[in-house]
């Protein structure tokens, strides 16, 4: 058989005739065992004499220190993360952002460029699933971060606080507190606040409920109905709606119904913004806060 003959000749050449590559790889394997972690021995293993150097912040002292460690993929990762040659601009810019105040970042075009590119990735990984890729949100569920209506405030510090500690929307359900016609009246009044409808007898009755003890809406939304950011209570005088989907309704009747349904149900445990302080580093939070701030509508 011709095939057998070829096999035979290769084998013979390699094993008997001496095949350079074959022996070289055998030698290499033995060297490899000594440089890298390899053979198990008892309840431990040969650790190899390869080493990795990396800089880490020491937990006890809080200082950055250089360490040497035996070769393994986890040490390599730390080396990689701290290695400036890998992505010199990133490391330098991160340090700059970390040290700068919000004012300084916003005024520095180079830092802002960095914020926009890195922030986009961070936002995509962590926020986009709820607030949408561009931050436009989903009416009723996740607020739009690009408009100038803010529940908790659109200042840099307020956005920062929103990210660090998370937010929980809460408004009592009025379905059992107010009678259906009272709900109608109060919805009528809410519509007049943003100029959707003109004041009427019904809206005046609604105003009494809103501003009085019966409804007590003023308590959170303020007597001017401009909202209270410390409570995350919405501004009802602008034409921007975060939850009650008024703009999508064509007739005044439907707009009223949208508000009425919302006020009857309220918000409890359904609109939760997770806290990020345990997931993201302070620098990442800073980057995202500036990124959100520059999406538009910031204060």
């Amino acid at each position, binding site marked *: 058989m011709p095939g057998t003959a070829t096999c035979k000749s290769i084998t013979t050449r390699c094993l008997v005739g001496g095949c350079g590559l074959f022996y070289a790889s055998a030698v290499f394997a033995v060297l490899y065992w000594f440089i890298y972690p390899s053979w198990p021995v008892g309840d431990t293993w040969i650790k190899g004499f390869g080493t990795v150097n990396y800089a880490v912040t020491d937990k006890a002292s809080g200082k950055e220190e250089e360490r040497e460690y035996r070769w393994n993929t986890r040490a390599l990762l730390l080396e990689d993360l701290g290695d400036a040659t890998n992505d010199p601009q990133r490391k330098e810019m991160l340090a700059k952002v970390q040290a700068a105040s919000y004012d300084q970042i916003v005024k520095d075009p180079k830092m802002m460029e960095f914020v926009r590119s890195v922030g986009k990735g961070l936002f995509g990984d*962590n926020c*986009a699933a709820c607030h949408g890729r561009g931050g436009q949100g989903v009416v009723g569920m996740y607020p739009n971060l690009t408009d100038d209506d803010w529940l908790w405030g659109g200042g840099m510090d307020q956005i920062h606080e929103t990210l660090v500690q998370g937010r929980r929307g809460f408004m009592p359900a009025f379905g059992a507190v107010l009678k259906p016609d009272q709900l109608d009246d109060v919805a009528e009044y809410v519509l007049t606040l943003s100029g959707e409808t003109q004041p009427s007898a019904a809206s005046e009755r609604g105003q009494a409920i809103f501003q009085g003890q019966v409804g007590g809406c003023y308590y959170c939304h303020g007597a001017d109905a401009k909202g209270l950011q410390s409570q995350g209570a919405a501004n009802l005088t602008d034409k921007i709606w975060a939850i009650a989907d008024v703009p999508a309704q064509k007739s005044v009747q439907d707009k009223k119904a949208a508000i009425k349904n919302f006020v009857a149900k309220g918000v409890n*445990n359904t609109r939760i913004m997770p806290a990020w302080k345990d*997931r993201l580093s302070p620098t990442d939070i800073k980057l995202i806060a500036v990124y959100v701030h520059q999406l538009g509508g910031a204060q």
Partner: protein
Amino acid sequence: MRHEHIETNSGLMIVLILLVISIGGLVEIVPLFYINETVEKVDGVRPYTPLEMRGRDIYVREGCYLCHSQQIRPFRDEWLRYGHYSLAAESQYDHPFQWGSKRTGPDLARVGGKYSNQWHVQHLKAPRSVVPQSIMPNYPWLLETELDYSDLASRMGALRATGVPYSLTQQEYDANVSRFGKVVADQLDISQAQDSLMKQAHEKDFDGIPGQITEMEALVAYLQVLGTMVDFTKYDEGYFTTFR
């Protein structure tokens, strides 16, 4: 025996190849069972509660692992996107583990706490209602199907047989109390399993339907605990490299 003899005799060749591969496999895998550092020494990792365990069963049943891995590898890009790399200790009670390598969707090893329960419910019911570009399938039946928790004892018993410390005897229970604290030990006790499942579902209401325990309840409870057991701020950055 001459090498040609093996090469020209395929039956023998197969047997010898299997032998060589088995030795290689055994040498690589077996030592992991007795090398002390395989499972990192770390606080906080506990077996799943009965509700989370049922959620995990549903995760496996629905084949979520076909698109999602649960293992963050120690690489720069994964660290930046998903967070701390996974530890062996974190899946020590997973049988079978869900590491995987198929990532049609993102890795889920640290998805716990990233989103709210409402988001998970909405996303599992209709992924495209929150992520328009998503290609993940809809799982609407999870919210419509009552969770079957009649056979918790046998499910936990099976895991116990593989070494997960669910307790059957008073002695095992006491050991769990000293290891995990009383609250957790109660949840790991097979005789109290149904009560603790109902209690957790009632308190947390993961599916957003009060008074009802659906399969969604269990699955979201499971997703929300993934990767949250270890508090990495307690450890020095270099600590986990010492185990490899």
